């Protein structure tokens, strides 16, 4: 673990991607998408709230949107192109959930699928007694990883 942190900190910070659909913003699908036809303006605003900018240091990622801020780790799995994702979700930096899932990258596109467990805690009522599990889909676009010669890895 210490070695992993050391390696992560040694890596330069970088812009990773913009998540048009953010896994931490999954409550949008459960709570807001239904009103699209009735209140399109408000629904578009709520959609914009969940769009996230993601920065990374090594395998550690920080995702920032108006709806949620997530600290996550994305680690390549031994077989295939899949990467495992685990993260802590906060809302206005109040920890209110966690996510666990898988992601795959193809060129500049990242697609992720997770389960988000999120509580109803707010800063006005920090109460973590009730939780719900939501399916979460992520779709991000960022700079494609540079091709690296095998001998450089």
């Amino acid at each position, binding site marked *: 673990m210490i070695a992993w942190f050391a390696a992560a900190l040694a890596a330069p910070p970088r812009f990773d991607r913009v998540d048009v659909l953010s896994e931490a913003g999954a*409550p949008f699908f*459960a*709570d*807001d998408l*239904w*009103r699209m*036809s*009735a*209140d399109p303006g*408000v629904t578009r*605003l709520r959609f914009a*709230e969940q769009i996230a900018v993601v920065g990374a240091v090594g395998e550690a990622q920080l995702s920032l949107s*108006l*709806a949620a801020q997530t600290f996550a780790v994305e680690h390549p799995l031994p077989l295939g192109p899949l990467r495992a994702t685990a993260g802590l979700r906060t*809302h*206005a930096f*109040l920890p*209110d959930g966690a996510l666990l899932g898988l992601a795959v990258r193809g060129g500049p596109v990242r697609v992720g699928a997770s389960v988000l467990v999120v509580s*109803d805690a*707010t*800063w*006005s*009522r920090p109460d973590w007694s*009730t939780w719900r599990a939501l399916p979460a889909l992520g779709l991000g676009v960022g700079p494609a990883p540079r091709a690296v010669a095998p001998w450089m890895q």
Partner: protein
Amino acid sequence: MRTVAFALVLLACSAEEPAPTRGEGHGGGAGYWPPDSRTAVRGSFAQGLDVELDVVLTRDRVPVLALSPLVDTRRCQIDGEPVVGFHRWDELGSRELSGVACGGFPEPDFPNAVVVGETPITLDEVLDLLLDAPDDITVHLDILHEPGFTPAPERFAEAVLDRWIEADRPQDLVISGRRPELIAAFEGHGRERGFDVTTLLDLPLIEPSDGWGSLVVEDLGARITNTQDYVRAARDAGADGVTVLADLADRRQLEVARREGLITSVWTVDGEERLRPWLDRVDVVVTDYPGDLP
């Protein structure tokens, strides 16, 4: 493991089903009758509909139904003359109400509503009409109190609750208002009179100067800072529930509030497409067309 599963099944089966969503006619049912009018109250009571009526006070503290603390310059006339400038209802005495006429022309928003012009209806008349109304309807009075602009909340509480208590009607009374001090005044006066009044806090707090843009920005600010919490707002105000502007309502927050035992209501929702998502998710929907609810 089996025992745990069995217990979970039992728990799921014993969970109390929430009551189906009720509809309340906004202004008595503004889609059918002129809002907050005698015709609307008579019509909705005759149909057995729950009503949401807006209440102001006259100078002599008589509760009257009206859409705004100001006499509506567009809809009303005083002594046969158009209303020019600002006229507060509490500048008029109850005896002067006979010189006020509101409505009497088609409302563009409600093309199928009955067209009738009439004098404002007092709460005393509403209480009289309740004698012939079904016992199981709910009368929801939204109190149009505005600090520094209308009489104090305590005056509203005394004027409304004393009449209701003395009339002793079997129907349910619900009071709503935008400010915690109004809720406190009704809850306090109810306690003094030994009457348990049901109160709802109106959300968001809309100031007279607020436009749609500022409401959206305030809502966004509360969402970003994670400080929007209907349960906390209701509890801090001492209210029994919340009634939320549907356009900005947070459905999850309403579900949480309902689960916490608070009454949840949204306003004003018209049209089947807009009504459908709220059905069985909130206790009450305030609508101009209460007949659209199943």
